[in-house]
């Protein structure tokens, strides 16, 4: 197992020097000749009808080159989710109504950002203010204002291999007002399950919206060539092929006329995959003016309009037997989607899909509701549903343990799934390190000594733990990744991949996979990536499929190149191909080291003897090799993913019981990522997840009042700073995933999900205070401590 030469090592990332010297070009750095600057006019109201828009004054402003409103784009509907059941509900610019503060109303292209901004001030919009609703439970009531009036019928842009599909007017069937998504699922018999339980409890937990805070603001540069009718886009994104698909539909350009390129991306965390109006507007304005147009969002716009994590209400009822077996669990999730569906239909599916693989519960019922409100739109964010639902499940499990005198670690161990388990949807856990993750993380925070041992002084200590699961890719457009390995005269290789570096280090890990498979060094690989014209398709850097899906494609492409090299060598040495092996850019005949040939020579021989073939290897891998179907979002049926990553977080906190102030002392974050392709990069993902999870558990909150955002900068929206860094113990639990390249699977999302419950449980262990709503803040702790003191006196 350990004879790998390149994978598994903590090799320095290949994009390091460019990034360390300031040479790396990010989307915000792209500058084209004659480029115009775009700005977007946004709604100041959470819910209003547009009576009129007057752009005449703005048009007269010198330097203004084009203005667009909903009139120019009417008829165009698009969205991240656009299926027959959930047809697209967004328009690039508001047509009849605005549905949240920040909703796009008009866009301007001008010779400078200042002029574009001034032009926005000259556009007059007359609104009729409508009643608005800001909580999903209010919005579901029959008397609530209706946010999307007409059911969206017609032909969905969603296609199966070129054939547009009829929509099925989902809204008409919905039993509640303002519902935009509904997932239901059950196994066993929930009533019988609860009847067989010795102990049952019901709780409600809620989470607040959070922001991605990628340090590079969202940006798009569009350059349209009117002669060739061809559009070039540079996007700060996680999936160039999905972007190309969505943009070509919305702009009504053939897919082959849209080229999406990817510059370096200054962080994404799920926030750069949804379909965004600013991208559409940049493209449209470029098409209108024939000039390149650049739109960069301000930080305030990023907070307001680039999707946030769904605030979620979880009602959960769980029953256990005396010996700690969970026999029934009933989970109801309500997700506030904001003014448009965003990823609402996905998150209510994933709250089940990312969570259910953790504990084996025979009687289980799940219901998820996605609900429109007049809040900002919500989309995918690292873990996408898992942090919210794991917060509820493992907070409650901790309470159950305490009330029954059980140890939560033992309770978890008793109920977790294991390698070989088949989930009810058919997914088989071919690798599962949950047990090792739980014991490893618990030991790393000295669970046995520290649990129930808060200490005597004013400062109390406590420990808490939580677990999560995550997909490693799924069937989602474009359903697969392909890769190309081009050999060079000197025996080195170039990898062509459509995957995108977003900070996760995929260029390095994929190059390592190539190098290992082919028998060359990491320094012998160059990577050409992120260009829909140059590179083969890629599922994109979301749903955590990069390592497994794209990694497999790269491995197969390298194997193909190697096979071609071996064929010429076998011929030349007159030995069977099976006798050959490769290392250090050379081919060897096994057991006869005298017969050896450098790759360079094999490439040359191939050119001469195989009709000019310069050796190009190709490979591809499907989002899930076992199926051709999307999983059903509504019914949670069908196969979800080829492999699950698992992770467990244990936290130790110290709480000052006089002020409520508390500190995260230590986190043990144990991740089963299969085989870590690059140890340093995997640790980096785990540490990044820990920090983001720390922020979302303790600090971060999108503060809204009547739809108005009160946390739109880094002073009001606090995220972890260097001084708040806890001691982090990374535990890489190495299982070998048979579906993964060299055994690799997901890392980078799941390791965040358990942080919320781990910290809330640790605070409870220290103080007896149970915080049921994130973030866990000193104010909430103090208020509860005072209540506890009163009730005991």
């Amino acid at each position: 197992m350990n004879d790998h030469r390149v994978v598994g090592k903590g090799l320095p990332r290949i994009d390091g020097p460019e990034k360390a010297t300031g040479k790396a070009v990010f989307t915000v750095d792209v500058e084209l000749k004659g480029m115009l600057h775009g700005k977007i006019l946004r709604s100041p109201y959470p819910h209003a009808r547009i009576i009129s828009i007057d752009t005449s004054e703005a048009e007269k402003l010198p330097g203004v080159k084009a203005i667009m409103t909903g009139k120019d784009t009417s008829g165009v509907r698009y969205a991240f989710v656009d299926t027959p059941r959930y047809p697209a509900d967004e328009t690039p610019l508001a047509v009849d109504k605005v549905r949240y503060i920040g909703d796009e109303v008009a866009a301007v292209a001008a010779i400078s950002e200042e002029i574009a901004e001034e032009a926005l001030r000259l556009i007059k919009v007359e609104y009729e203010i409508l009643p608005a609703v800001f909580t999903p439970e209010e919005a579901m009531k029959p008397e609530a204002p209706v946010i999307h009036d007409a059911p969206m019928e017609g032909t969905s842009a969603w296609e199966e291999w070129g054939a547009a599909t009829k929509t099925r007017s989902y809204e008409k069937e919905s039993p509640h007002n303002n519902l935009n998504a509904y997932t239901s699922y059950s196994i066993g018999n929930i009533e019988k399950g609860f009847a067989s339980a010795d102990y049952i409890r019901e709780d409600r937990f809620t989470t607040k919206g959070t922001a991605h805070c990628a340090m590079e603001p969202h940006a798009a540069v569009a350059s349209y060539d009117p002669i060739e009718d061809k559009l070039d886009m540079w996007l700060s994104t996680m999936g160039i092929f999905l972007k190309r698909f969505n943009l070509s539909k919305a702009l009504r350009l053939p897919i082959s006329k849209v080229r999406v390129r990817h510059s370096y991306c200054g962080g994404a965390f799920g926030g750069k995959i949804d379909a965004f109006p600013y991208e559409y507007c940049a493209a449209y304005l470029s098409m209108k003016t024939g000039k390149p147009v650049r739109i960069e969002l301000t930080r305030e716009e990023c907070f307001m309009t680039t999707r946030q994590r769904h605030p979620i209400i979880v009602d959960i009822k769980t029953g256990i037997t005396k010996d700690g077996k969970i026999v029934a669990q009933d989970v109801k999730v309500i997700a506030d989607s904001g003014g448009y569906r965003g990823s609402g239909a996905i998150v209510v599916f994933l709250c089940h899909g990312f969570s259910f693989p953790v504990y084996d519960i025979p009687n289980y019922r799940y219901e998820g509701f996605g609900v429109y409100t007049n809040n900002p739109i919500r989309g995918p964010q690292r873990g996408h549903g898992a942090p919210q639902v794991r917060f509820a499940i493992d907070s409650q499990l901790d309470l159950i343990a305490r009330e029954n005198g059980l140890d939560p670690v033992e309770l978890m161990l008793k109920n977790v799934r294991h390698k070989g388990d088949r989930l009810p949807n058919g997914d088989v856990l071919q690798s599962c390190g949950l047990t090792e993750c739980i014991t490893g993380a618990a030991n790393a925070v000295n669970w046995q000594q520290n649990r129930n041992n808060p200490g005597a002084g004013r400062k109390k200590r406590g420990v808490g733990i939580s677990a999560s699961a995550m997909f490693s890719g799924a069937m989602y457009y474009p359903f697969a990744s392909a890769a190309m390995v081009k050999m060079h005269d000197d025996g080195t290789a170039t990898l062509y991949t459509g995957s995108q570096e977003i900070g996760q280090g995929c260029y390095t890990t994929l190059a390592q996979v190539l190098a290992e498979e082919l028998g060359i060094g990491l320094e012998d690989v160059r990577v050409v990536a992120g260009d829909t014209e140059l590179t083969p398709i890629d599922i994109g850097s979301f749903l955590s499929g990069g390592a497994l899906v794209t990694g497999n494609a790269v491995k197969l492409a390298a194997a193909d190149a190697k096979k071609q090299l071996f064929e010429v060598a076998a011929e030349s040495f007159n030995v069977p191909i099976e006798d050959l092996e490769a290392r250090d850019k050379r081919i060897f005949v096994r057991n006869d080291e005298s017969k050896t040939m450098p790759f360079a020579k094999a490439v040359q021989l191939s050119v001469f003897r195989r009709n000019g073939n310069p050796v190009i290897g190709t490979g591809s891998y499907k989002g899930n090799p076992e199926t051709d179907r999307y999983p059903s979002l509504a019914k949670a049926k069908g196969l979800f993913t080829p492999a699950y990553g698992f992770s467990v977080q244990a936290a130790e906190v110290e709480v000052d019981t006089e002020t409520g102030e508390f500190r995260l002392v230590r986190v043990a974050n144990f991740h089963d990522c299969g085989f870590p392709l690059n140890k340093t990069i995997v640790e980096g993902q785990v540490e990044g997840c820990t920090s983001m999870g720390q922020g979302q558990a303790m600090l971060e909150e999108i503060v809204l009042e009547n739809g108005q955002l009160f946390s739109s900068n880094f002073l009001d929206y606090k995220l972890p700073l260097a001084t708040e860094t806890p001691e982090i113990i990374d535990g890489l639990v190495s299982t070998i995933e048979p579906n993964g390249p060299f055994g690799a699977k997901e890392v980078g999302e799941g390791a965040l999900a358990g942080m919320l419950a781990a910290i809330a449980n640790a605070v409870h262990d220290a103080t007896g205070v149970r915080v049921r709503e994130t973030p866990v803040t000193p104010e909430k702790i103090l208020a509860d401590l005072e209540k506890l003191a009163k009730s005991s006196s």
Partner: protein
Amino acid sequence: MKQIITLKVNGELRDAAISVNKTLLEVLREDLGLTGTKKGCDHGECGACTVLVNGIPTSSCLTLAVTCQGKDIMTIESLASIDKLHPLQEAFINHGAIQCGFCTPGMLLVAKTLLDEDPHPDREKITASIAGNICRCTGYVKIIEAIEAVAAQTP
């Protein structure tokens, strides 16, 4: 009204015709083509735009370019010499302190100032010195380790 200013950037004198309200960040990125300096917030809250002005880490998004005439400005573009990375750059790369890389230029310049002033800072001093630079990717651990590693190499 535009005004011609002369800035000394990375040891070179550079002229730019700018409006007086332009920030140093805008002039570096837009007029001088030095896009290594990043804009994360434009409000002095994230540290991505940090450059050294007379050796002092400064948020270039809050600094008017006209006020920098006659001062020495250093950006990330001159941290490495022509053919050799600065030890901090090496350490950031080798320790995994860079992920997306957007905070990296600012972080490196702050770290350089710290080590120039105190070649052997303790962990507390290191974290305090980079507390004004937000990194969303790394959780800071490897950045801190990279700085410690350079300090440990320094005699």
